[in-house]
């Protein structure tokens, strides 16, 4: 009798666990396997040169390849579409040898001309990332499978930048056919072919069985945007989705105890910080900014808000990234010193306490800011103690960065995940005067210090790692003293997945590469 119940139970469970048909490829049935990836948001436009959205990048890295790419598990640069490459002694000429017999999903061949076409397009139309490719002077076709990059100046991060998603190699044929439509029907060389996308509902990728590294582990991938994290959790428990990302830290701790669910965790290459609009009084006074820094209880942030899955930050460069300044000592949580500094500033600038300020927070969680509202509350509680009354305004992500780049805020929650594992990607992108502009400039604090600028520019062209490191250390020391932002946390990158999903490992770069994911074969 008990056996019958067991069988009945199994029968009932099978359709749940097998949503979408992930029943493994038994010899007889040849069922197609589908991996469902549940996430908090949707893509914006699937064109590598036109996007800067993290949710889009999750799709792009599966559809496209780059010339070089990160190794499957580490941040080492490995060959990809380029089999091998050579550099001239002065670091100005780079010759890439392409892998032969690679074709795009539309059947057109990958050749040197395609590379040239893509970089011309990136340099002309590149949206937020053009500056990363500024060193490129020319791209020339040497022969069918050889392409030569000539640089204006030697760049230590050139190769890393080639591994970044804006440098994805698109099919020139498809782009030429209808460039406007390309963002809704991308064609690359990657492990998955784009199949369909209904915005806000689902995005489907088909396995590219002819992929040059071999076919991917599943036949189909579906990206589902599921706004509510509580629903993502439930769907993961029921097996309706196989991977869920961007979940609240406390939820993940509970999920980890559930059978059939596995948690993966890595220190993220990211930083969550408090941007202060340095142009707006009284925030133009360094003492006010330092006072705010002293007043924020980062320990409470890490242990309560992030349930222990984040580490306090004192510089924007994460500890896992080159030239993270280990010699700096964070300002301790010290209300008395904060009050003293604020009082001094009030005397100097003649403003009265308590101050009233706005704090902008994003409505949707980000990997570096998994609990935006709770983080905002910690900051409000902290600053209340030193006489700064905050009003919290939560803003939808679609308008958020735009409004911040225009400098509308006084205080705002912000953050960054590195694309290329280099301090330049944090310090230059987030604090250099070159990146102050109303159209998506990432220097949200509008911090403008010539001494920092000089060092950051020099470091961009410095090949010697020791000298580069020194330049970045000096820049971080000046920034620490000026306190244009309050670095808050480096969060752990954590994802929950069903135990039957094998082979998928979150990558230190945070790129979601699903090629190796596969379903565990069920024992007969």
């Amino acid at each position, binding site marked *: 009798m008990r056996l019958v119940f067991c069988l009945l139970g199994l029968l009932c469970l099978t359709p749940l666990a097998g949503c979408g048909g992930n029943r493994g490829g038994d010899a007889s049935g040849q069922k197609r396997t589908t991996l469902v990836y549940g996430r908090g948001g949707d893509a914006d436009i699937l064109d590598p040169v036109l996007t800067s959205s993290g949710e889009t990048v999750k799709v792009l890295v599966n559809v496209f390849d780059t010339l070089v790419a990160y190794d499957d598990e580490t941040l080492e640069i490995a060959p990809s579409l380029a089999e091998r490459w050579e550099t001239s002694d002065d670091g100005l000429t780079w010759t890439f040898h392409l892998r032969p017999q690679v074709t795009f999903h539309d059947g057109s061949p990958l050749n040197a001309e395609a590379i040239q076409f893509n970089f011309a397009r990136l340099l002309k139309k590149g949206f937020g990332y053009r500056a990363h490719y500024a060193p490129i002077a020319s791209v020339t076709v040497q022969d069918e499978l050889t392409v030569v990059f000539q640089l204006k100046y030697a760049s230590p991060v050139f190769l890393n930048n080639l591994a970044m998603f804006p440098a994805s190699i698109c099919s020139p044929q498809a782009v030429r056919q209808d460039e406007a439509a390309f963002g809704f029907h991308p064609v690359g060389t990657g492990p998955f072919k784009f199949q369909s996308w209904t915005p806000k509902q689902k995005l489907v990728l088909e396995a590219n069985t002819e992929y040059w590294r071999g076919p991917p582990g599943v036949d189909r991938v579906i990206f589902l945007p599921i706004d509510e994290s509580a629903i993502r959790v439930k769907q993961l428990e029921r097996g309706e989705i196989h991977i869920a990302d961007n979940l609240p830290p406390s*939820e993940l701790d509970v999920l980890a105890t559930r059978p059939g669910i596995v948690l993966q965790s890595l220190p993220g290459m990211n930083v969550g910080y408090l941007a202060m609009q340095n142009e707006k009084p009284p925030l133009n006074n360094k003492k006010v900014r330092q006072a705010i820094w002293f007043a924020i209880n980062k320990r409470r942030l890490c242990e309560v808000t992030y349930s222990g899955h984040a580490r306090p930050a004192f510089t924007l460069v994460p500890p896992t990234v080159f030239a993270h300044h280990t010699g700096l000592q964070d300002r301790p949580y010290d209300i008395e010193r904060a009050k003293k500094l604020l009082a001094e500033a009030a005397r100097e600038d003649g403003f009265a306490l308590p101050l009233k300020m706005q704090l902008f*927070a994003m409505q949707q969680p980000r990997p570096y800011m998994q609990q935006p509202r709770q983080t905002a*509350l910690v900051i409000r*509680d902290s600053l209340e103690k030193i006489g700064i009354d905050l009003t919290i*305004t939560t803003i939808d992500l679609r308008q958020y960065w735009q409004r911040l780049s225009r400098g509308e805020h006084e205080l705002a929650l912000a953050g960054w995940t590195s694309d290329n594992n280099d301090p330049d990607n944090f310090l230059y992108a987030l604090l250099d005067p070159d990146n102050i502009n109303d159209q998506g400039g990432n220097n949200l604090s509008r911090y403008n210090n010539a001494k920092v600028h000089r060092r950051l520019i020099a470091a961009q062209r410095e090949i010697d790692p020791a000298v580069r490191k020194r330049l970045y250390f000096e820049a971080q020391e000046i920034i620490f003293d000026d306190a244009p932002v309050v670095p808050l946390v480096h969060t752990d990158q954590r994802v929950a997945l069903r135990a039957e999903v094998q082979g998928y490992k979150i990558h230190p770069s945070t790129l979601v590469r699903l090629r190796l994911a596969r379903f565990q074969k069920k024992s007969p």
Partner: protein
Amino acid sequence: MTAQKPSAGGARARKRFCRSAKSWMGLALVGLMLGAALAADWVTPYKANQTSTAAAGEEHLANHRRPSRRHWLGTDANDYDVLTRVIYGSRLSLLAGGVSILLAVSVGAPAGIAAGYFGGVVDAAIMRTIDIVLAFPSILIAFLVLTAFHNGWTPVILAVGLINIPIFARQVRAAIMTVRDLEYVQAARASGASSGYLMWRVLAPAAVTPVIVLATLGLGSAVIEVAGLSFLGIGGNAGDAEWGAMLNEAKDHLNTSLWPAIGPGAAISLTVLGFNLLGDSLRDALDIRLDAR
């Protein structure tokens, strides 16, 4: 002149009201919430935005503490004491609900009186405007109002007030229509009373009882509407101790802990139940008929 005021028989109504268990339950619930709102500063164990840790000076930081002797309803994701915030939340919820109903009465009632008294074009103009407002789902109107303003509680009160205006205008108009042609009104008119006198002194008293009943019932729905809007995350200030906003924060952690949702949820239900019971028994006691809303 005051021969047949419809509010006669107050003693009988009072007796009916006192005899019903419903009214006492309603009074008790509403009294409890009002008491909590007034006495929040004295009865709460913590401050609204004070974490458990800050209160106790503990070394171990945590969130989502389970209900215990120190935290009867546990703590939330920010380690705020849920009971404290529920008690403080009664202030914002009752105040916002109350003010918005006051607003609805002060606009709706005069409009209803004017429509009922003048009739004709004035009546048509007022009532058709109200029909138009009623044609939209009330939540949509609230969205419109809220998008026109920045965050804060004032727009929420305005929005909830606005969507309640038609209810009062219609009911008051109906009440005025029933007494408009009665003898005492005709007598007043024949004795040469001005329009203002007729409207405010002679006709308006006829609308007082339905307005009282409606306002009591309306308070219940206003509390829900305010909580609903802040639950959706529009209007209000992020981080304020308010029931709807608390529910919104709790929903992200439902799998981890239920208690941050139970407190505000129960508070909303009990308050609304209280107002509904009170309104119902007032209606029975005052023996008036209300049109279907």
